[in-house]
């Protein structure tokens, strides 16, 4: 059992502060939409495919509405008006509508109501279809084994060949060797694309593109593998960058199980505009909540840039903020995989106890959540033999502290994307360590005044101080002072600000109404 040596009153105080921090910005999130949110709503209405230039139709429609300065009313509203007069090509219909004199003037009350009712009906039907697919996945999973054994972390590995068909071969092989979760890494530049590419892709660097077709192909292969193995193999991708909501929607439609999704990651590590990310994380998490997708937050990244021991408190504080945002997007604790990692400089002493202290604290602060443990990366330098031992130590901490998901370290980290044999070695040793230390955690008790207990209190006190400061000055100010991940950002800087649009008073998004549970 993981032990927590922090005063429960302090934990309560920290949660209150995190809630206040989220509330301060949630009001502004609720007054805005983004181009990616609007594109997602259109996609639910079946707006798919690409136009003659290769750009997605959803982008063409939304860009045109933004040019005409009417996007604040909601893209679905305009789609409804444009298609009312017949036709099926949304780009042409919107073009024709915007070209008509008086096109932007309101309809009569009765017409307006009829239009909105019609679009709500269609949204309900489409969302119902989405829900049906999710239920189908859940039923399939319920009939299979999940994980190595009750209480073992899900063994999570990545594939990153840059070609979806090679990725499928490698994912199958990994699953056969015991992988429970396969994450398909995206091409390095995708987070900064303000559109989602189309179709099956066989190129990219450090991974291939996240597309709906790639999701479908990979899930199909893993369904077949899961059936054959009698053990469910989960699929993960990345709902981060400039298209968080669209990726979440495509993930939901293709029955993905997990998505990387963080309230602050894009702001800090991809220099995406702060408001763009905050609005997009909200909508994308609403979709994840609806589609039973487990999100993985990215706090592990804080300690790959900053010193892991020094910055441990930023992980704890940020997780509480991420939790507050996730709750405001309707997510249940069971679907929030808080990220953290085994990353303290191995040249120091007692790092095992210090790692155990943090891993147990994260585990116990979020008892219902499938916390996600990341492997060491920063201090790996190509010595694969040392790296393998180093990874085994992370495996030991993961099983002992009951982590929900463990991304297995690769001995060739810092050299190349994982070879098939690297994944083999990682899976074999993780399975060994899990088996060997299966009940270690439940037999182990730490001294109330020992290194672990003192370390937890010290980290939590610093996390609490950071939350006090952030609640007092606001999240924008804290990010401006590089309080998280050692990176400073401003609210007007970063990519994608032009895609943030104020909602009109009569903003219409029937998909959001369903996700927020507001529809009749």
């Amino acid at each position, binding site marked *: 059992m993981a032990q927590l040596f922090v005063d429960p009153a302090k934990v309560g105080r920290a949660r209150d502060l995190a809630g206040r921090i989220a509330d301060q910005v949630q009001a502004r999130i609720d007054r805005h939409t983004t181009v990616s949110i609007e594109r997602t709503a259109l996609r639910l209405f079946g707006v798919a495919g690409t136009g003659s230039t290769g750009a997605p139709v959803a982008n063409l429609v939304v860009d045109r509405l933004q040019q005409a300065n009417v996007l604040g009313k909601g893209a679905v509203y305009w789609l409804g008006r444009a298609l009312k007069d017949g036709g099926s090509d949304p780009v042409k219909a919107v073009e024709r509508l915007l070209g008509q004199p008086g096109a932007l003037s309101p309809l009569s009350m009765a017409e307006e109501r009829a239009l909105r009712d019609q679009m709500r009906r269609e949204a309900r039907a489409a969302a119902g279809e989405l829900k049906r697919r999710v239920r189908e996945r859940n039923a399939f999973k319920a009939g299979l084994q999940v994980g190595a054994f009750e209480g073992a972390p899900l063994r999570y590995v990545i594939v990153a060949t840059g070609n979806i068909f090679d990725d499928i071969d490698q994912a199958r092989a990994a699953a056969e060797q015991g992988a429970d979760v396969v994450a398909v890494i995206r091409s390095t*530049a995708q987070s900064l694309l303000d559109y989602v590419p189309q179709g099956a892709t066989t190129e990219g660097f450090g991974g291939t593109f996240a597309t709906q077709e790639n999701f479908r192909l990979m899930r199909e292969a893993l369904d077949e593998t899961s059936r054959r193995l009698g053990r469910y193999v989960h699929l993960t991708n990345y709902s981060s960058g400039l298209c968080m909501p669209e990726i979440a929607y495509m993930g939901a439609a293709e029955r993905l199980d997990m998505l990387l999704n963080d309230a602050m990651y894009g702001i800090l590590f991809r220099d995406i505009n702060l408001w763009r990310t905050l609005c997009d994380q909200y909508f994308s998490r609403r979709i994840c909540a609806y589609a039973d997708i487990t999100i993985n937050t990215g706090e592990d990244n804080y300690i790959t840039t900053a010193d892991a021991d020094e910055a441990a408190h930023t992980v704890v504080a940020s997780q509480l903020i991420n939790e507050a945002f996730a709750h405001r997007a309707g997510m249940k604790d069971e679907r929030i995989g808080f990220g953290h990692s085994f990353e303290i400089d191995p040249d120091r002493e007692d790092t095992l106890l210090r790692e155990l202290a943090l891993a147990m604290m994260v585990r116990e602060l979020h008892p219902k959540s499938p916390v996600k443990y990341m492997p060491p990366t920063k201090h790996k330098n190509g010595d694969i033999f040392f790296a393998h031992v180093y990874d085994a130590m992370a495996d030991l901490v993961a099983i002992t502290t009951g982590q929900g998901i463990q991304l297995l370290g690769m001995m060739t980290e810092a050299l190349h994307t994982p070879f098939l044999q690297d994944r083999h070695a990682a899976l074999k040793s993780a399975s060994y360590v899990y088996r060997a230390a299966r009940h270690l955690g439940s037999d182990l008790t730490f001294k109330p005044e020992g290194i672990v207990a003192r370390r937890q209190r010290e980290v939590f006190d610093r996390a609490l101080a950071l939350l006090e400061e952030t609640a007092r000055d606001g999240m924008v100010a804290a990010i401006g002072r590089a309080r998280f991940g050692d990176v400073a950002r401003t609210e007007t800087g970063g990519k994608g600000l032009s895609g943030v649009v104020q909602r009109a008073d009569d903003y219409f998004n029937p998909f959001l109404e369903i996700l927020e549970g507001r529809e009749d």
Partner: protein
Amino acid sequence: MNLIRPYGDRRDDGLVQLAFTLPVPAGAKAKEAASQLVKKMGFKSVLVASMEPAGERFSVFVCYGRGDFALDFDRVEAPEVKHPKHGFDALNARIAERLGRPIVVVGACIGSDAHTTGIDAIFNMKGYAGDYGLERYPWFRAVNLGAQVEPAVLVAKAKELNADAILVSQIVTQRDIHKENVRALIEILKGEDLWGKAILVFGGPRIDHKQALDLGFDAGFGPGTRPSDVANYVYYRLCEKLGLPEE
């Protein structure tokens, strides 16, 4: 003449350990295939120490082989970055005394590569492995542009600041994308006054000094490089470029 061979348990036994994957299911035939492949590499006394099924369609091997190839160590040439190395305070004091102004360094991870790990390890205040980053040095003006920076943007910033050194990091090297990126950078630089003036430094997990020289850089730094290695190098190379006498 100083002939050397791989050293296993005894001088000149020539023993080498190999690990690889074959796209065939494990079995007697796969094991024989692994053994034959290692012989084809030129090894003798081949031992297939382990064959593990890696899924149903792949197998992973660990093999040993004896190579009778040898090399005259005296005839091996490898360029190395050579200069004395000073600690944090000593280096700052030297720059103050001999240059009388801070050294301006601009760095980025260029192209689509989104990894800031390398460039951050060298630049960030906290540095790497207990070694302070360039931003901490009072006698360095260090500007880190982060990741996914277009080569032209890096050059423009270097021009604006009249940089003494440009640091380029590349982590992703799949299908030699890093070479394309740095070639683009070098092409842009060639049209600028900075060419020949600014010190060009290339770093990354799969970069070495020789490769960096071949690509047109002044120096290359591989895995395990500490910020102070780069700081000292830039100082010495700058003194050299400015024609300052040896200390």
